[in-house]
Every structure is written in structure tokens, then in C-alpha cells.
């Protein structure tokens, strides 16, 4: 079992000097994050949201403008990267091109002044773990992308750090390998139980890997939650839009129920979910919402995921099909309702009726998939 450590970011801030050198802007703006021991946490967001800067501050490559980083409750702001008990897997792998696989993986252990025997045992065990046995004398340029990725992972893991950091490690791999490698990473992380912080802009990677996802935008945190929470109960328009695709329909709250249900997940104690009755398309619908967020009379947006809308010859809401695209595993539609455009997806279209542009259809909206957020 690896060492496990918790990480706390308190008011962590990174101020950059603008290009001309006379101004500043906040790349990371007073964020607070708690990462429990052994958790796999993803920093997710579009480029420029501050996720990589945050990770590089944890690793020690970026200076900290304000706030602090605690590792197991101990402030580590002042430690240079070589003194921090964290190891990073780089986006470009950053393998040492002049060392073979063995020396790459053993590099950090030499810094720890371990004897040759120990290093050899540890390196070989690690290569075994990541599936590179027999490749220890290959040079990095003789390896495929996926193999280089494994060396980078092994090199970080062999240090037995308290925290493992990943900077978009899969972005240089092709789509199939990416999916395979992310499963591998998750498996290895689960096996040794190491605390991990993972940066990505790919939401499916974040969903597949994480106990907890932190969605960042413009240096701020938009939402922290389990993959289920951020998808089903997005806190903001940005989150709903960034994770998957979503229709936003304006609505008005008629009433709010007082009882909420508390979610529990590996992310820790989660949010409390309530229900509200909203008026949308001139009809009343029951929608989920974050408990305490809404009051009756509020103008809200209802988030409807495309897969929650079914097209049929009869149903709740009348609509007109404006586009219909065959995608193989599904049929994509765009329909018009009361001047609103909605996107819908019907899976396995070969077994269903397919509508064409101009057709009049009825929408069947899955009631428990609606989620209302403040406008």
C-alpha cells in the first residue's frame, strides 16, 4: 500500500503578469479544495480555466501568489518541486531521451540515494505492474505512445509519492488507446490507493476516472461533486453545458417541496436534492433542483438532456422536426417547440420509427431527468 495523504488548497491564487509586464490577471482565483486520502480527483475545464496552473502549483513548478497548499495538514508552499512528496505524469511524458526505460524509471530512486539492488527490485516490480516487463533496455524513441505513457506512469509511481499528479496524460494518444489507458490508470490507482489529482479537458475521461470532479472556469470553481452529481444535478448553466450536451428551457417555479434527499458517494457527503414544480411549455412538470436554491415564483432554466426526450406520435408536448441526422448508434433530431429549439437523441434508431424534417411529433420527457437551475 502506498502512503496516502490528503491535500487542501486554501484560497489558492495565481496572479500572472500580463505580457507587457504592467498588469496582472488571476489565473486561479482564491479556490478552496479538499482532497481526502486515496481519492481520485479530476480538475476539469476548458483551456485557460486555471486547472493546469493549479496542478503545477501543487507540484511546485508555479509560485503561489496567495493562499496555501497543505499536504496532510502541513503547509508546503515554500518547498521546491524536488522536496515535495508528489510525482507528476506529464502531458508530453517528458521521458529523458538519453536514458533507457530502466534508467528513466530508476532516475528518482537514485536521488533518494537507494542502493543498486533496491533500485533494481523496485524498478522491475514497477515495470511489471505497468506491463513493460522485458522492455527495460529500450530507449524512449523505440517505444510506442502508449508504452511511453506507461514509462512516465511507472517513473512517477516508483517514487511512492504521497500524491500522484497527472497533467492531461492521455491527450497525445489516439482515441482507442486513450480509453484503454484510462481504465489501466484507474485500475492501478485503485490497487495502490494513491491520492491522485488529474487534469483534463475531456469530460468522459473525468467521468470514467474520478471519485470527485472539480469543474473550473475562468480561475473559479463552478462545482465540486461526484460524476453523477455534476451530470444529473449541475449547479450552474456552465456546468450543465460543459458536461455532455443540454437543452435549456426557461420556466417558472410554481412550488418547492420542503423535503430533500442527501446524496452520498465516494466524493464524500454530497448535495441535498429537492423537487420543484415548474411551468414549462404551458404545462406543469416536476423537476429536481438543489435543495434550498429555488423559491416559488423564481424564473429558472430547466436542463433537459437530449437522451431524456423521446419522440412519439402522441405525448405531452407537440413539436415539429427541423432536422434529422442518422448517426449509426442513434438518430439526432432538432425539434421546434414554441419557438425553442431542442436537441434530442434516440438510441438504436433501426428498431424505432424515424421522423423526417417537417413531421409533427410529440415529445415524451422523462420526468425524473429534469433539473432546474437559477437563471
Amino acid at each position: 500500500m502506498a502512503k496516502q495523504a490528503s491535500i487542501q488548497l486554501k484560497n489558492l491564487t495565481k496572479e500572472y503578469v500580463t505580457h507587457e509586464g504592467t498588469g496582472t490577471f488571476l489565473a486561479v482565483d482564491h479556490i478552496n479544495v479538499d482532497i481526502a486520502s486515496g481519492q481520485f480527483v479530476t480538475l476539469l475545464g476548458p483551456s485557460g480555466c486555471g486547472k493546469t496552473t493549479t496542478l503545477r502549483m501543487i507540484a511546485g513548478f508555479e509560485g503561489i501568489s496567495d493562499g496555501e497548499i497543505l499536504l496532510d495538514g502541513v503547509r508546503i508552499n515554500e518547498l521546491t518541486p524536488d522536496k515535495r512528496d508528489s510525482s507528476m505524469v506529464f502531458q508530453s511524458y517528458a521521458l529523458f531521451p538519453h536514458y533507457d526505460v530502466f534508467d528513466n524509471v530508476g532516475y528518482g530512486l537514485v536521488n533518494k540515494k537507494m542502493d543498486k539492488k533496491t533500485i533494481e527490485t523496485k524498478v522491475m516490480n514497477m515495470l511489471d505492474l505497468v506491463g513493460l516487463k522485458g522492455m527495460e533496455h529500450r530507449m524512449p524513441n523505440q517505444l510506442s505512445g502508449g508504452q511511453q505513457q506507461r514509462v512516465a506512469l511507472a517513473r512517477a509511481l516508483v517514487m511512492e509519492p504521497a500524491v500522484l499528479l497527472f497533467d492531461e496524460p492521455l491527450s497525445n494518444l489516439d482515441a482507442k488507446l486513450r480509453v484503454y489507458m484510462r481504465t489501466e490508470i484507474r485500475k492501478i490507482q485503485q490497487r495502490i490507493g494513491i491520492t491522485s489529482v488529474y487534469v483534463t479537458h475531456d469530460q468522459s475521461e473525468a467521468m470514467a476516472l474520478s471519485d470527485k470532479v472539480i469543474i473550473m472556469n475562468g480561475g473559479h470553481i463552478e462545482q465540486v461533486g461526484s460524476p453523477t452529481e455534476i451530470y444529473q444535478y449541475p449547479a450552474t448553466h456552465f456546468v450543465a453545458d460543459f458536461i455532455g450536451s443540454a437543452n435549456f428551457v426557461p420556466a417558472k417555479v410554481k412550488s418547492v417541496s420542503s423535503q430533500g434527499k442527501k446524496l452520498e458517494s465516494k466524493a464524500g457527503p454530497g448535495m441535498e436534492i429537492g423537487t420543484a414544480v415548474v411551468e414549462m411549455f404551458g404545462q406543469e412538470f416536476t423537476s429536481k433542483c438543489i435543495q434550498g436554491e429555488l423559491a416559488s415564483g423564481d424564473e429558472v432554466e430547466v436542463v433537459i438532456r437530449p437522451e431524456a426526450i423521446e419522440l412519439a406520435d402522441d405525448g405531452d408536448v407537440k413539436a415539429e422536426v427541423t432536422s434529422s441526422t442518422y448517426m449509426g448508434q442513434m438518430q439526432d433530431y432538432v425539434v421546434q417547440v414554441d419557438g425553442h429549439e431542442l436537441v434530442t437523441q434516440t438510441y438504436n434508431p433501426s428498431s424505432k420509427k424515424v421522423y423526417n424534417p417537417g413531421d409533427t411529433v410529440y415529445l415524451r420527457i422523462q420526468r425524473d431527468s429534469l433539473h432546474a437551475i437559477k437563471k
Partner: protein
Amino acid sequence: MGKLGTYISNQIKTTRNTFRDPIIATVAVGMVLALFVFVVWPLLMVVKQSFTDLDGNFSLQAYVNIVTMSETYQALVNTLMLAIIVGVLATSVGFLFAYCSSHLAIKGKKLFNLMALLPMVSPPFSVALSIIMLFGSRGLVTYSLLGWSNTNIYGLKGLIFVQTISYFPIAFLLLAGMLQSIDPSIEDAARDLGSSKWRTFSSVTIPLVRPGIANAFLLVFIKSVADFANPMAIGGNFSTLATQVYLQAIGSYDVQGGAAVAVVLLDIAIILFILSKYWIEKKTYITVTGKASRERTMIDDPQIVGLVGGFCFLVTAIVLAIYILIPIASFIKMWGVDYSFTTAHYKYALEVGMDAIKDTTLLSIIATPIAGILGMIIAYLVVRKKFIGRGFINFSSLLSIAVPGTVIGIGYILTFNEPPLQLTGTAAILIAAFVIRALPIGIRAGESSLQQIDPSIEEAAADLGSNASRVFTTVTLPLIKSAFFGGLIYSFIRSMTSISAVIFLVSANYSLLTVLILDQVEDNQFGVASAFSTILILIVYVAIIVIKLMLNRLGSNPQKSQA
């Protein structure tokens, strides 16, 4: 005020962050100090001296003299005229070579690259010496073959010839790099849109390298202005600023006058350097990506190939003949009179010059690793670290490319003649001059190879527990190894062949080979001069081989094996 305030506080923040690492902080401060003491301070002393009269009071007399004293004024006019003519000629010849090597289907182009290296590895007087032996009053061509008597190669025409031959390779290498990195599909597009070969050349190729042409001109111009050896050897009565500095300061013991001339020379060089560095280099359209998109289809039109290629091979033949003449002449009894074989010149050279040979070699051997390592450290700091003083390091180290050697030489005399740093007459001052003169190229090579290395490789090493010096020695240095050894070779050659700065600094204790060669050339002792030059070339080649062997023993270059 507000803006300046935030600027300063931002700079301080960044510096404090970088200097969290004590090793980086110590080295950076050390570099700033060293460059200040050995580059900036001497130049300031030259400027100060030029404004001081014999009693130590402020005076503009020296500047008045430049304009009123006809010989100095003439030197200024001569220098600029020579530089413009040589700039145009060398750039034109260099461009033809570059175009030939990048665009024409000709065999044997590798010969051009080999030839372009010759001026770099040769003693400073080689070309002048050969030209005198070929075209002088007792020249092989002019006197022995054509039977002309009283031909005078000394002066402007000799200098134009010698400098053009010496400096066109600079323009060639610079322009060849640029022409090669033009994406061939841009030229193909022009052809596809109906341009003739000529219109493609004039409307696409030339405009794309125009900044490079301007830059090549300026570099040659700077070289010509700074040139000391050739005007001394073949200038005759045609004096230039660089020689004037020496003749006034050392010949006439007028250090103040020499300093004033040196300031003028310094101004010209710095203005041109800044122009080249910050104006022209910014205008470049071509970005060198390192990825060759596609092979260029070479032009095989027999007329173009015949004309341009023929010219280039003719020039190459002349250049090779010029350099081969030196070792040959070292075995000829009396050039122009008695062409029989002798080894007497070597006997004499070894008798008179043994100390100089030993001193020059030893001092160069000491200076070489210092320059090589400092160059890599400075390149690393400039490319990878941000701190106050980084701009200073970058500028002052590159400044020493632009500053003519004679200016550095007179600056060193003025600065290190008295406490706090009394170094004149010691080996230290010669080594310092060698290092400072050799540094810039090492830095440039280091910088460009560092820029090709992903910084996260170094970050990975730090992340895995290496401190700054271990990151540098285990990761950075091995990856820029070839640049490092290239820098070593260059530093050694540069030290062995330097003359313009060190001629001010030689003393009874230490004499240098190049200074002896100059004495022999001035005395028309061509045989002995050739013997010394040949010995110098041999030492340089032995050193190159030794350094290459060291590189090979350290394993093959990882960047090359990355196919």
C-alpha cells in the same frame, strides 16, 4: 507611476520565486557580476576615458580631434566605405551560394559547407597572406605568371578582396538556413498560379528572405568594421578605425585618442547590432519548425544551374587554393624569388616561437572549458529562468559579439591596469579576453538547442527529487551535449586565432602565436608567417579531433538517434 510600480513589484515577485532555489540564485548573481566586470565595465571605461583629457578633467578634445585630424576622419570614411562595399559583395556572393545549395540540382554541394568553415578555423591572416603571395608585387600570378612588376595589392582593393572572401561564408550560412526553411509548397503555389521561374524567384523567394538578406549585410558590415587583422596585414596606407585605435593607443601612446576612436567604432557596431537583432530579426516571415514538410523539387534548368553553379564552384576553387597556399608556402625558400623546398622556416619558427606556441595553446586549453560551461549555464538561465538581470545577461553576453576586439582590448587596458582588479601582464587577463570573445557563439548554440527541448523533461527531473545542479548535470547538459562540444571546439579555435583584443594585452610574460604571425607578415617574412599559421592550424585540428573523441566516448548524441 502606478504602472511602473506594478511592473517593478511583478519583477521582484518573479525573481523571488526563481531564487527560491539557492543554487540558481548564486549562479545567476555570479553571472551578472562576471559579465558586468568583463564586458560592461571595460566599455564604460572606454567611454569615460574618451571624455577625459591628459590631466584627468572632462574634455571633448578627443572627439574634436576625430573630425579635425584628417587621419582619424579619413579612417572613419575608409571604414564605412569598405564595409558598405564588402557588405554588398559578400552578401551577393553568399546569396548565390545559398540559393545554389537550397534550390539547385547540383552535385557536390557539401563542398560549399566545408569551404564555409575554412575561414572559421584559419588564423586571421591566412587570406591576406595568400592574396599578397598570389597578387602582390612579387605575386605568383601577377609577377611570376603575368610578368607584371610594381603591382600594388595593398590598400582598398586588396582589402575588399580579402574581406569578401573571408566574410561571404557568413552570409551564405545564414541565407542557406533561411532559404531551406521556406516551405516548398509556397513556391509551388506560385508556380501553380501561373508564375514563371523568374517571377516565383522575384515575387516569392526573394521577399521571403529579404529580412535575411538585410541581416546578412549587417553582419558582414559589422565584421568588416571590426576587422583588425586584414587592415593590419594588407591595408597599407588605407587605415581603418579598428587599426587606428591600436596605432594611437599603443603606437603613439595616446590612450585617450585611441579611446575616442574606439567609442566611435563601438557606436557603429552597437547601432548595427541592435538594428540587426531587434529590428530585422522581428520582421522574419519564416518560422523554423524543424519539421520538413516535404522535399523541395530542385531546379535543374541547365542554364540556371550552369551559370550559378559554375560561379559557385569557381569561387570555391579560388577559396580552397587560397587556404592550401599557406602550408605550401611554409616550405618555399623565398616566395617570388626562389621557389625551392626548405624546412628552414619551421626551424626558425620553433626556435623563435616555441614559447608563444606553448603559451597560446595552454591559455586556450584553460579558456575553452570555462567558456564552454559558462556558455551553457548562461543559455540555461536565459532560456529557462525568469529573474531581474536576465535581460542584462542576455544583452551583455550578446553585446560581446558586436563589440570589436580592439575596443575590448583598449577597455581591458584601461580597466585592469590598476586596482581594484590589477590584471595586466597576467595570464588571467588573456584568459578572460579569450572567454569573453568565445562566449556568445556557445550561448547561441546552447539557447537554440535548449529551445528544442521540452521544459517538462527538466521539470520531471526536479519532480523526481533532483536539485537544480543535478537537473542541469544529469538532464540538461546531456541533452545539449552536441551544442556544448560544438561550443568547446569553437571556443578553442576562437582563442587560438584571436588577435584584435589580445594584441593590447600581450606582455613580456606571455606572447601569442597570432601576434608573431602579424610581426612576420609586416616584415614580409611570408615563409615564417606561413609556417606559424600551419602550426596553428595543426594544433586546432588536433584539438578538434580530441574534443570529438571525448564526445564519442560519452556516447552517441541522443537527439541524433531520435529518428
